[in-house]
């Protein structure tokens, strides 16, 4: 019977086979219910506890067995609060398997008890100095698995020594390299390579492929953070890669995987090269291009095996090579070949390859060299959107369509995306809606198409249309009189549907209130018909929409006097004038009074058609009007203006961007109070928060901006609670910023909200639409959430948008405001030009206000490579052989804004002796020269 019960045990147990453990596992597996399992576990825990506490000293084997049982129980998901000491005891056993189990337990059940940590570190120290390679490896594995700060403090100095020592065994070197990598990731400040740098880089030349495979991960990570110190790795990586790529499939023996030589190492080498610009040395570059061509050629050769492992390994290298080609973005020939290769994969029978091809093509679409080549695959991609059975593949197809869209194919792509939206998965609808809205506006040639598209969006996916999208259609209709009649007609027709979305009612109410007169001539859409249509929706709508409709009604009284009595009747009804909602009641009362006492002239003046939104005006006009604009009005005045009915169509709903804040006035107050980076005053009694507010170094907001002028990714903010990482990409006048909010504590953040605002006149210069990928207002301890912000540059600007973050941590409200690192240079497109052209344009920009100049002291070492990297990061083209003085740098680029393109030229003259720079910027626009000069002067 016993045998029957344990029937589910394996016939053979490997290794030393702890029989007691096998029996226990088998018992657990035979438990019929959760309760039975818990009972069995509790029995075992009691047994182990008594054994550990017992007088009789346990032998190593029993200790190992019980520790292993505890580990098993923990891995089942139960809490374990003892046994750590016994595990630590095992560490000093000289029997390998006992030590091994001890280390495994410590790695899995990391404990923060400081006494234990001291003991563990001692044991590790002993093993590291034992000169027994298997013991050394165990100790290194443990450090790599735990990776805590305490371990970094204890061992970060020792491990580099082990890594580069001549007599270290290969297997120990491998563990040491990756152990160091893990410590570097958790505590970069404690891992100092310094004198070891060159020897670590030279591990790329090591004879043992395993050592190279491990070391290169470390080198890649270090290169990302300190590219200059590690730049000698480029030529070493290229020659290593070249040797692998040209080797026969049997040359590398056990490092050949399904006939592919060293696929892991190849991928890592190609990945390392992506940390650097193309090699400058012609010979190295030639060798690398040869490698890339060989990899592309091999893709066309017949497979050496039918196994999927063969093709996966081969294609892994191919995709990594394509990533490198895209990263360089400088070899048109390779880019087009890469694109053709991906094109083949788009129709491959392997879903995985289709997915990756779509993903990779997305980045190719943004290169000027391959954009056209990508576009030729449009039919295939549309087909993928329609027929792929896997939503993750369809998502990739939608992303690619978005990336390949331009004026020539916008109508087709938008139509396809709209029709896909009807059946799209809920998870991706909001993003699709935004994409369609952006494309429709960006490539609208005739605005009736734009209006149709947005109304279709609301009809198909109304729930997913954010406020920004419908504000935008109203702004555009108001600003373009050629589309107003069409918009009124279309929206009137859309409202005929018996169940139309509330967003449609909002747009309909607003547009008919403004332009209903343009279709009132047709008896089928007479004023009264329009009113009755709108009012038939009234009772189904939420309060803000009803408020908007009331404003539309008073506008109707002005537009169509014949509707006056009907509408007054409605306003007078108890359900309006005695409405329990204050806002609705107030509107009803005020509008009723206004319509009864004001003369026609007064009414016409008060209810005049909305003026155009300022966005489309030239910046000079905007400046002129600024004094009267909202940016210059104090909060009190703004409040009063609202009360007086200055904004008739509903306070918060009218504006473009400021309205994404729930309470605009409160936010304006926030902006004006003190410096932008502020942690909220801690509430009394909360120790943690007190510590936090003292410990926070508050860098000036410009310091943050300075860090991101020449780069797009990095950590934007960090304190003891929160880390905000940023990743951004720009193309023409559009940008997309990914913000990653990481909760560094183990406690959740609640009511986590963020708001992006554009202070003052900035809102007419940048339009942003933002969306949460994770809608939860909660961030769990240790978790990270992502937010995407889409940015559009309308015209040049100098201020930065503000990001306000509010959340509660342990009951205390945290509130901070940061500047988002959006600077005008992000919208640069590099322009290559010859010397002659450069100076000709330089002369053309000779008006005194077109030039800005600064002479300043060097803040950093005057290293040519660093300067070049920064200038490239700026986004302009760095022009070689243009300036007669080879010490000088000249750059050219065009800033893409929606309103216009601003050509800019730059000249940087270092004077090494005086440690000074002279920076001169000339642009077709004075404000741009000035701003670029300010931004750059802080960089060098």
């Amino acid at each position, binding site marked *: 019977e016993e045998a029957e019960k344990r*029937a589910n*045990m394996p016939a053979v147990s490997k290794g030393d*086979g702890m029989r007691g453990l096998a029996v226990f596992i088998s018992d657990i597996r035979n438990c019929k219910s959760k309760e039975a399992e818990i009972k069995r576990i509790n029995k075992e825990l009691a047994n182990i506890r008594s054994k550990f506490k017992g007088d009789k000293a346990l032998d190593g084997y029993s200790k190992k067995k019980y520790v292993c049982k505890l580990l098993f129980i923990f891995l089942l998901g139960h809490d374990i609060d003892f046994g750590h000491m016994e595990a630590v005891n095992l560490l000093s056993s000289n029997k390998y398997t006992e030590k091994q189990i001890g280390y495994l337990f410590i790695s899995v059940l990391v404990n923060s008890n400081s006494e234990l940590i001291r003991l563990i570190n001692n044991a590790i120290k002993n093993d590291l100095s034992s000169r027994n390679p298997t013991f050394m490896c165990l100790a290194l594995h443990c450090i790599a698995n735990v990776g805590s700060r305490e371990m970094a403090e204890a061992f970060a100095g020792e491990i580099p020594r082990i890594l580069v020592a001549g007599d270290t065994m290969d297997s120990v070197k491998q563990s040491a390299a*990756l152990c160091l990598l893990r410590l570097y990731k958790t505590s970069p400040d404690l891992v100092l390579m310094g004198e070891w740098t060159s020897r670590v880089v030279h591990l790329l030349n090591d004879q043992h492929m395993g050592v190279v495979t491990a070391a290169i991960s470390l080198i890649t990570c270090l290169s990302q953070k300190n590219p200059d110190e590690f730049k000698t790795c480029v030529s070493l990586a290229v020659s290593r890669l070249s040797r692998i790529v040209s080797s026969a499939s049997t040359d590398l023996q056990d490092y050949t995987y399904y006939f592919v030589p060293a696929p892991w190492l190849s991928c890592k080498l190609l990945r390392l090269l992506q940390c650097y610009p193309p090699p400058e040395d012609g010979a190295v570059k030639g060798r690398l291009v040869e490698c890339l061509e060989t990899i592309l050629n091999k893709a066309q050769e017949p497979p050496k095996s039918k196994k999927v*492992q063969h093709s996966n390994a081969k294609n892994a290298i191919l995709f990594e090579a394509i990533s490198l080609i895209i990263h360089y973005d400088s070899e048109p020939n390779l880019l087009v070949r890469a694109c053709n290769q991906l094109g083949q994969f788009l129709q491959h029978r392997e879903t995985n390859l289709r997915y990756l091809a779509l993903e990779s093509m997305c980045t190719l679409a943004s290169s000027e060299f391959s954009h056209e080549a990508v576009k030729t695959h449009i039919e295939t991609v549309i087909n993928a959107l329609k027929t792929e059975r896997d939503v993750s593949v369809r998502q990739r197809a939608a992303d690619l369509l978005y990336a390949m869209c331009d004026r020539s194919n916008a109508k087709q792509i938008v139509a396809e995306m709209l029709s896909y939206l009807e059946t799209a998965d809920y998870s991706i609808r909001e993003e699709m809606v935004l994409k369609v809205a952006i494309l429709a506006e960006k490539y609208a040639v005739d605005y009736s198409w734009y209006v149709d598209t947005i109304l279709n969006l609301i009809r198909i996916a109304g729930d997913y249309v954010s406020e920004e999208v419908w504000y935008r259609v109203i702004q555009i209709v108001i600003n373009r009189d050629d589309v107003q009649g069409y918009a009124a007609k279309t929206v009137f027709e859309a409202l005929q549907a018996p169940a139309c979305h509330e967003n449609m009612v909002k747009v309909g109410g607003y547009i008919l209130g403004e332009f209903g007169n343009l279709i009132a001539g047709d008896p089928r859409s007479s004023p009264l018909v329009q009113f009755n249509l709108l009012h038939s929706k009234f009772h189904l709508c939420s309060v803000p929409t009803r408020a908007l409709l009331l404003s539309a009604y008073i506008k109707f009284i002005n537009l169509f006097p014949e509707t006056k009595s009907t509408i007054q009747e409605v306003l007078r009804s108890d359900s309006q004038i005695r409405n329990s909602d204050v806002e609705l009641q107030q509107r009803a009362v005020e509008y009723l009074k206004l319509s009864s006492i004001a003369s026609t002239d007064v009414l016409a003046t008060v209810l005049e058609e909305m003026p155009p939104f300022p966005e489309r005006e030239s910046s000079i006009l905007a400046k002129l009007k600024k004094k009267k604009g909202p940016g210059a009005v104090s909060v009190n005045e703004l409040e009063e203006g609202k009360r007086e009915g200055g904004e008739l169509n509903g306070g918060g709903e009218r504006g473009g961007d400021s309205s994404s804040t729930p309470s605009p006035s409160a936010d304006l107050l926030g902006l004006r109070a003190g410096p932008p980076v502020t942690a909220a005053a801690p509430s009394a009694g909360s120790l943690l928060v007190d510590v936090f507010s003292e410990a926070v170094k508050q860098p000036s907001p410009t310091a943050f901006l300075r860090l991101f002028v020449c780069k797009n990714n990095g950590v934007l903010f960090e304190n003891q609670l929160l880390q905000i990482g940023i990743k951004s990409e720009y193309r023409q006048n559009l940008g997309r910023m990914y913000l990653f909010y990481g909760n560094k504590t183990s406690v959740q953040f609640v009511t986590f909200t963020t708001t992006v605002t554009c202070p003052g006149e900035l809102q007419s210069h940048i339009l942003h639409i933002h969306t949460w990928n994770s809608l939860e207002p909660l961030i769990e301890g240790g978790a990270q959430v992502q937010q995407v912000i889409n940015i559009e540059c309308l015209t040049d600007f100098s201020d930065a948008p503000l990001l306000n973050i509010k959340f509660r941590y342990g009951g205390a409200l945290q509130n901070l405001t940061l500047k988002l690192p959006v600077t005008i240079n992000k919208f640069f497109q590099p322009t290559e030009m010859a010397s002659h052209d450069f100076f000709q344009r330089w002369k053309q920009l000779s008006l005194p206000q077109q030039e800005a100049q600064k002479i300043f002291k060097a803040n950093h070492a005057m290293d040519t490579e660093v300067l070049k990297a920064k200038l490239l990061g700026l986004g302009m083209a760095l022009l070689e052989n243009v300036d007669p003085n080879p010490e000088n740098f000249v750059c050219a680029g065009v800033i893409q804004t929606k309103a216009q393109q601003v050509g800019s030229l730059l000249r940087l003259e270092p004077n090494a002796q005086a440690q000074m720079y002279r920076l001169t910027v000339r642009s077709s626009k004075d404000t741009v020269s000035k701003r670029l000069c300010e931004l750059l002067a802080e960089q060098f």
Partner: protein
Amino acid sequence: MQFMLLFSRQGKLRLQKWYVPLSDKEKKKITRELVQTVLARKPKMCSFLEWRDLKIVYKRYASLYFCCAIEDQDNELITLEIIHRYVELLDKYFGSVCELDIIFNFEKAYFILDEFLLGGEAQETSKKNVLKAIEQADLLQEVRHMKQRLPAASSRRSDLHKPLRDDRPKHTHTQPDH
């Protein structure tokens, strides 16, 4: 790589390896969420998916799912082959490995993984070298239990006994004869 999870078709976690510091609570949450997501996917679907800001790469071997979370710049296909190489290592060590082997010898599965991947990166990709390290460790054992026979296995075959690395094409018996 940020973490690797092995779980059964029934959603039981068989092995978890975390290369980034996370609280136990967060680990449990991630596991729950991912097991659910991956099990809900149909066969033949793509092996990759976006999840939070990570990429998930997974593959099923007999009754077990192997699931890795990698970062944006990491290579999906090579990760798929990391999974495969790990299965090969287990297979070679246990001799036609099945889910039960991993349940009963979980500690060995961890040791093999540590020899192959460290800190989330490939440490040694040569099958010979990894197994050499593990076999050496086995030889160092103080008591030499030769491969020990445990109570006889029942004739009842289940998923748990199915070799993970079954290279035979699936469903051949269901194809109609012509």
